[in-house]
């Protein structure tokens, strides 16, 4: 099967420092590709370039055969790319249900006039979005929290809510930035299953995750970054044996301890 998302020689610099340099890889439908690397390796920067938050100064992002480099995030969403964030981006003062419904924005939005006067067309679109959102909440195990204010949920629940919102777009490509960070073992396993299930439905998944056990368990393919460069790539078994990868991780272990 051909690639759904291709990253070709992507790079960006901040004030003379190359945060990401000449990184290339591609993801096929149904595949789970993980990007790993020590802290500061450029993983989140890479994600931000792919999802249109940062503008790369080199290389291209190709989504489903189209060059989508540096186009605005809301237009990327329209083309089927959806993401979650390392530091949660939840609509805190809205209900859990409304957060999920927001993910249906592209499908439920229509004329403003219909919305202002609550015309039947507007009410129907809103109802359909609500039904879809409820089903998604059930899928991530949050159906009972639907009416609660999102800000009151636990961290792990918010992580799942963010995934539900991203899935509401019915994406072709899903970018997950540390979906299991801050979650306990049970929650991590739930998220594990969820990701595997989503991939099975044909979505291409791009994952950044620190939990190595999880990465090794669910990834089909792993790309390793260090100091903004791709130092290795391959299936989990190959990558974990790679001397460059081992060196990169061992070399930074002390620094990681020092950070606390």
């Amino acid at each position, binding site marked *: 099967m051909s690639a759904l998302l291709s990253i070709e020689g992507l790079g960006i610099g901040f004030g003379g420092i190359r945060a990401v340099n000449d990184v290339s890889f591609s993801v096929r439908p149904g595949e789970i590709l993980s990007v790993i690397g020590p802290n500061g390796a450029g993983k989140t920067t890479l994600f931000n370039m792919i*999802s*249109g*938050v940062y503008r790369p100064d080199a290389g291209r992002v190709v989504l489903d055969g189209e060059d989508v480099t540096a186009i*605005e*995030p*809301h237009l*990327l*969403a*329209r083309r089927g790319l*959806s*993401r979650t*964030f390392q530091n949660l*981006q*939840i*609509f*805190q*003062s*809205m209900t859990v249900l*409304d957060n999920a*419904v*927001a*993910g249906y*924005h*592209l499908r*439920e*939005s*229509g004329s*403003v006039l*219909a*919305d*202002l*006067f*609550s015309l039947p067309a*507007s009410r129907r*679109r*809103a109802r359909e*979005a609500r039904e879809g959102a409820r089903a998604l909440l059930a899928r991530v195990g949050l159906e009972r929290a639907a009416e609660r204010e999102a800000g009151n949920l636990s961290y792990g629940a918010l992580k799942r809510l963010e995934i539900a*919102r*991203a899935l*509401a*777009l019915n994406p072709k490509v899903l970018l997950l930035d540390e979906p299991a960070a801050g979650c306990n073992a049970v929650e991590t396993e739930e998220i594990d299953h969820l990701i595997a299930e989503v991939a099975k439905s044909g979505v291409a998944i791009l994952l950044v995750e620190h939990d190595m056990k999880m990465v090794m368990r669910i990834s089909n393919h792993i790309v390793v970054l260090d100091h903004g460069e791709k130092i290795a790539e391959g299936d989990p078994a190959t990558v974990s044996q790679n001397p460059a990868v081992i060196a990169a991780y061992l070399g930074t272990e002390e620094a990681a301890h020092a950070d606390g």
Partner: protein
Amino acid sequence: MRLSAKSATLIVLLALVALSPLLFPSNFYYRVGALIFVNAIAVTGIVILTGYAGQVSLGHAGFAGIGAYACALAPVHWGIHPGLALFLGAGISGVLAYLVGRPILRLHGYYLGVATLGFGILVAMILTNERALTRGPDGIDVPDLGLRGLLGDLGLSLSNGQFWYFFTGLCMIVGAWIALNLHDSPTGRALRALHGSEVAARTVGIDVAQLKLRAFVISAVYASVSGSLLALQNRFVTPDVAGFMHSIEMVTMAVLGGVGSVLGAIFGAAILTLLPQVLTVFAEYEHMVLGLVMILVMIFLREGLLPSILKKLRGKDE
């Protein structure tokens, strides 16, 4: 069945408009009531812009000025009926809001506040200085709307005060109904979403700049209608309607009552319209008292008076 927040708000407003006159000691209070409703309409627009979408405008009185002077000038110069002039003013305000907002709302931060501040001052200056057209700071007469006479012919005779009380009250309820529709609609949800997190709003496909612009245009139309109704009711208008203090008043009313809730903001409009009437003794200190009230609300009741009070009451029930 439990009442939706929308129905509950509308029932409360209807009851207040219909029943308050029973308590009026004199006809003067019809006039105060109508002033409250006119302010409440502008403040409902602020709820959409600031409460839903999280954007701040410091120049909405500029749109009120356009609405007011449309009703004063269009009938005289173009022979348009004053009632239609209200819609003409709303249209002009909407288009101007679009033109002013389009370049600004692409930017982040407080640019909208500063730019609208400039816009409001500009409108007030034009209204003050273009004497040939607007007769300047002395103000200008506004023709009769004619609706009261029409109702009289149909056998429903109301005093001038009563007519404007019920007419503006009705307009306010329609305005609230529209704002509440918007709140639960796809557009309203998207507005609240971008208020919560613009980054996340973009990733679900929300065109943030375009939606902010829509909220800005809608709220400008509210301000314009409010200005028109004020001019039609007073049969007279001065450039003060577009003044900076009026812009600040709108925002203050909304924030005081609770900018996230339509009912709260209308409550704020009522308090700040009533206060100067009650505090005539303190006329000299009016602005000081207002300032003090604002500071205290911001410190102790940050969500605004009504939401904070309701939360306290609910807390006791459970």
